[in-house]
């Protein structure tokens, strides 16, 4: 659905005396039904990429197409569900007004606008804030309003820029459910975030940008864990002496009793864990020491 080919963007001052490259030769394809994360340090080009995909900016090289159309043509004809990083809404609009206006703009039929706004209020927990002005909302509530306005239409293109920024832990968890509910075969969901753990939970793949270049695209989620060996931490009580026999690569974690580091692929480790449990060990915790995405991110940014 999204085809990005050799995309480049260089910002130029008015007379071209100063140039700032923001994107350089980025090629990426996002299939319908996919959730793709976009990660990168500050200034990596994430927001520029999003602006081009929404047709707000024109590339200086390459091209982007959405369902075969230029981004602006696509957005003007079918709309996008877009949450900007900084939500720009007039401060005197109320929560309810903002949702009704955006439902109207999104093409929700007039007779369904009120019901759709009400649904979003309930879905995003905005009931007690519906009559409040935008300027009165806390950061987290404003972010939820941003999500509500973004999702009030029914677009096949969903673009969320730092969607969990400002959300409390409960709403961060709820956001994961929302993304799961948003998935559908024809829909592309693009999530730009600094929160790698969140991207790893939500996305099928994560594109890592650094200094305007697409350094790598990493498969995320559970399926990816089967493919590559990784380092895990295990915390065990009872039959701890069996660890070294079952996992020859295990090394104790310094200063932490009953904790070891293990390296391996998930299927192999699972076999070892079964053996360990059968030998009477109680596995208290078992988790990746650092996620593969974090490792890939670090490697991409540090040029390894």
């Amino acid at each position: 659905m999204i085809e990005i080919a050799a995309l480049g963007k260089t910002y130029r001052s008015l007379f071209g005396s100063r140039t700032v490259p923001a994107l350089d030769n980025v090629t990426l394809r996002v299939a319908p039904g996919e959730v793709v994360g976009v990660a990168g340090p500050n200034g990596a080009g994430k927001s520029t990429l999003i602006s081009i995909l929404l047709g707000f900016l024109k590339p200086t090289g390459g091209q982007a197409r959405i369902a075969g159309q230029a981004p602006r043509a696509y957005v003007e004809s079918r709309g996008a569900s877009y949450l900007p990083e900084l939500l720009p809404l007039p401060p005197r609009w109320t929560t309810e007004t903002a949702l009704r206006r955006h439902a109207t703009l999104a093409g929700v039929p007039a007779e369904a606008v009120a019901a759709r706004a009400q649904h979003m209020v309930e879905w995003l927990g905005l009931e007690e804030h519906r009559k409040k002005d935008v300027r009165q909302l806390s950061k987290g509530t404003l972010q939820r309003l941003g999500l509500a306005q973004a999702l009030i239409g029914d677009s096949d293109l969903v673009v969320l820029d730092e969607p969990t920024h400002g959300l409390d832990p409960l709403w961060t968890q709820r956001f994961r459910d929302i993304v799961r509910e948003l998935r559908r075969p024809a829909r592309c969901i693009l999530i730009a975030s600094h929160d790698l753990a969140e991207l790893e939970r939500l996305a099928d793949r994560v594109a890592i940008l650094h200094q305007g270049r697409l350094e790598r695209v990493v498969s995320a989620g559970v399926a990816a864990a089967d493919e590559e060996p990784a380092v895990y931490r295990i915390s065990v009580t009872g039959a701890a002496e069996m660890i070294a026999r079952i996992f020859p690569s295990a090394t104790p974690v310094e200063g932490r009793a009953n904790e070891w580091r293990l390296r391996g692929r998930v299927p192999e480790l699972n076999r070892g864990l079964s053996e360990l449990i059968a030998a009477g060990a109680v596995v208290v915790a078992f988790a990746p020491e650092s996620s593969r995405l974090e490792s890939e991110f670090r490697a991409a940014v540090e040029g390894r």
Partner: protein
Amino acid sequence: MITPPLRYLRWMAWDLARGPGLGMAAVGVLAIVLFSSLTVVTSGTGGEAPIFLAILDFTVTAFALLATAGMVSADFTLGYYRTLFARPVSPPLYYLQRWLLGGAAVLVATSVVGLAAARRVGPDLQMARILAQAALYYLLLGGLVFLLSTVSRRDWLIGVLVVAAHGGLGLARSLGAAATGAAAVLYAVLPPLGLVDVADPVPTGGALVHVVGYGLALVGAALAVIRLRPLARGARE
């Protein structure tokens, strides 16, 4: 399919009423208060009381400026375009609708103030002509500020300067000066606001073509700029 954002017209009208509409109401009330405090002295030919027409002319200028000031630039400066134009909405059609709505507001406000003037002056005040001139004036000045608003936050200020420059040059020409050289060229290039004074007859023939052509060119240029320029200047702007 791209359709005009007519579905949003009600909200647009509400914003216009709560924003520029308040300024227009204040100007209108001020004009009406002035009318009530003036003595009607009609001119020899038309019987229309020149001072009333001068106030009406000033009022229409203020209405046109208020109705269009920051029309496009505010959305871009404050970043509202990011949520507005992520919707299935054509930006040129959105702002054309807003501009037409501004014109309707100017005509309604001019009608109210004109009727207040007519109550004092009497039936000699030709409302049809005043409204026609107000519409043409909006086409020129409203079109100019619309175009300026696509490129500058100081659209209304530049609009005021253009009105002042045109008025100054027109006065100089009527006194026999500024009829040649750079001043004459400038006068010819500026929007022909002198042809659409509410005190004057509605232009006809070539003058009307000049006014309408100039106004439509301004509006067309504004729409072209909105269509052709990137909506954002930077990634987060």
